């Protein structure tokens, strides 16, 4: 007993001594990344810790994006929240409509004595995690764009060029099919052909300026005639064997492209890193097509991926460290490192220029497609959307999309359902936020 007590006492003293020796302010970062991306996050944290003495950052993986958000919320409710929480695009409204939960990144950074230049960020990134006045609430971190990967052999065999618009697709698709390929497949159609249908074609996605102005009375524009036209076409293409659909799972739709059976696959710019090792054939990439028949179409796409939020309820020293880390993260060197290691796009113009000057895109032109698409001229409706309970609305979309292609419902009925159930969820969210 006495021996145990002595050992504990020594351990305690040792702990105190090391704590004194370090004297660094400890901050934590909860994120939703695994595998290769998690290693990159650990590397960035290590570099941050080595770059200065005052702060010690610990990154913690909390599972998937959704699990990270859920555990962040649970931790906040019990007063155990981390300093930094990574929140994905669809969950943005949840955290941004709870103003007491976070400190806007812009306020945090200016308070720490840095200057904050909104224009330093690339076009597609600038507004997505900002409030209606353009103030950055979340710090964009890993940003991606939905782009079209093309199977080089398929296009050579069919003797056609990759399409820029869906009209062009309609003319070349039968040739690709005749050459023995499934012309088109897409992963996560909610992101590709719903959310980014609105951004690429510059169509309003929701009332109240895509939900930015207020949560009260926001409704989703899911029965837009242009959107219905796009989906009626998709269904026709599917029935004609021009579009392959393998369910809502991401990899189920990516696999046939990797195996060389598909001519065009709509995936994420962030898929590039993985595709380099999994694709069995040479491939290239291009922008997500749009409809030239829609006026003003061809604008930039919304960013996907996630942002970092500074959680409220920590002392000044810790907040200063969080601000320091955000500054470190947006430095061009770190951005370029992250861009190359993961395939996510650089979020600042300076970082983009640096990657260009290093000749990275001459070596790997596919890596530039995402950032180029995000820096296309913006339109009124391509800045972003802010919709509460959007992860659930996405589930409804996924359900209805599957039902469209399995023939259980018609395109019109499916989008009526998305509209009515989506509006009900938005109204419900307004109640929770009110």
């Amino acid at each position, binding site marked *: 007993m006495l021996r145990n007590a002595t050992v504990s006492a020594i351990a305690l003293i040792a702990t105190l001594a090391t704590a004194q020796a370090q004297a660094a302010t400890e901050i934590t970062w909860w994120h939703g990344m695994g595998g290769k991306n998690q290693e990159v996050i650990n590397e960035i944290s290590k570099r941050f810790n080595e770059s200065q003495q005052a702060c010690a950052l610990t990154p913690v993986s909390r599972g*998937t994006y959704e699990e990270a958000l859920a555990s962040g*919320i649970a931790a906040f409710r019990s007063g155990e929240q981390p300093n930094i929480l990574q929140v994905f695009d669809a969950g943005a409204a*949840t955290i941004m409509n709870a103003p007491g939960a976070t400190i806007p990144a812009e306020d945090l950074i200016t308070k720490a004595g840095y200057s904050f230049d909104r224009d330093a960020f690339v076009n597609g990134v600038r507004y997505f995690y900002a409030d209606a006045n353009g103030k950055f609430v979340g710090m964009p971190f890993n940003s991606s764009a939905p782009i079209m990967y093309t199977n080089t052999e398929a296009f050579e065999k069919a003797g056609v060029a990759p399409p820029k618009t869906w009209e062009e697709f309609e003319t070349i698709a039968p040739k690709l099919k005749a050459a023995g390929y499934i012309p088109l497949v897409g992963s996560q159609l909610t992101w590709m052909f719903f959310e980014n249908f609105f951004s690429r074609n510059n169509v309003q996605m929701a009332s109240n300026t895509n939900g930015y102005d207020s949560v009260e009375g926001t409704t989703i524009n899911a029965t837009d005639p242009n959107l219905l036209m796009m989906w009626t076409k998709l269904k026709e293409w599917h029935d004609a064997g021009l579009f392959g659909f393998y369910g809502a*799972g991401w990899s189920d739709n990516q696999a046939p492209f990797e195996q060389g059976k598909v001519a065009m696959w709509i995936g994420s710019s962030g898929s590039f890193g993985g595709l380099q090792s999994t694709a069995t054939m040479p491939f290239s990439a291009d922008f997500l097509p749009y409809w030239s028949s829609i006026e003003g179409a061809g604008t930039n796409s919304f960013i996907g991926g996630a942002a970092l939020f500074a959680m409220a309820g920590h002392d000044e020293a810790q907040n200063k460290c969080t601000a320091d880390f955000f500054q470190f993260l947006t430095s061009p060197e770190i951005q370029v490192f992250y861009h190359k290691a993961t395939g996510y796009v650089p979020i600042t113009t300076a970082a983009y220029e640096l990657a260009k000057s290093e000749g990275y895109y001459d070596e790997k032109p596919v890596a530039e497609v995402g950032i180029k698409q995000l820096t296309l001229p913006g339109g009124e409706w391509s800045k972003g959307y802010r919709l509460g309970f959007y992860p*659930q609305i996405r589930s409804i979309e996924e359900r209805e999309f599957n039902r469209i292609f399995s023939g259980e419902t018609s395109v019109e009925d499916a989008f009526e359902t998305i509209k009515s159930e989506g509006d009900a969820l938005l109204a419900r969210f307004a109640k*929770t*936020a009110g």
Partner: protein
Amino acid sequence: MADLTESPPLRAARVRRSRAPAAAPAPAKRVQFDAPVLPWLFLAPQLIVVAVFFYWPSVQAVTSSFYIEDPFGFGATFVGLSNYTDALGSAEYHRVARFTAAFTAIVTALALAIGLLLAVKADAVIRGAATYKTLLIAVYAIAPPVSGLIGMMFFDMHIGPFVTFARWLGWDMQVGLDYVDTATAMIAVSVWKQVPYNFIFFLSGLQAVPVSVREAAMIDCASGWRRFRTVTLPLLAPTAFFLLIINVTYALFDTFGIIDVMLKDKPANNPVTLVYKVYNDGFRGNDIGGSSAQSVILMVVVFALTILQFRFLEKRIHYG
């Protein structure tokens, strides 16, 4: 619940008395604790565990089911029963509830039937009995997410061997896309996971049937099936009843891991059970009030189901 679970031995005791009224039972020695506090002390660890992990969360779920709450806990609005009416009035909820009922019935029936069949056959094996039994039981050691993962690979739409086999039979199986195909895959994996558990219990139940009874039955009746039906099965009834309740609970709740893994985070139009929906709305959708209301409904249903089983089924069971 507590008095219900205690009823089998009491009932058994009563039955025994009524059969042998002549033999006066020897008066049992009454043991009593002197201090009234001591038994509670012994019970305390268990009671605390039950209170903390069962009663407290249940009370919390009931409370929050009457509120619409901001996920971060900044404010909650009392909405009365509207979370319940919202859930019960939604077509999607009905769809999920219907599937859950069918799923539970099919998984329970198949898992019990296959478990019983294997137990009866394994019981009859003489050579290498231990090997057969170990092989059959081994599956039980696999954790649900792992069996979900194995099932997912078996039924993968691009490379799954079962899908290839189904295609060979002329069935274009598309798990993850077609409602019925996904349901089939889920049921197959869930049953496969539960069969060993039933097997163990049925086997020990069979081995508890006295040799004298078996031999007597052999003399009286030549038909193996009839012997099984009239002698073995009634003697297995207590085991079967216990397994019925366990299997229903398994199908309702413990299949969550399998379903979650097989759906790969994207339920879409695929069948899900009520528990999965509670998780999906609560943890992924951050709708705490709505999700709590659903879990309370589920709690009431399971409670009612268990009471029904005890009231109507258990009466027919003879505890030897």
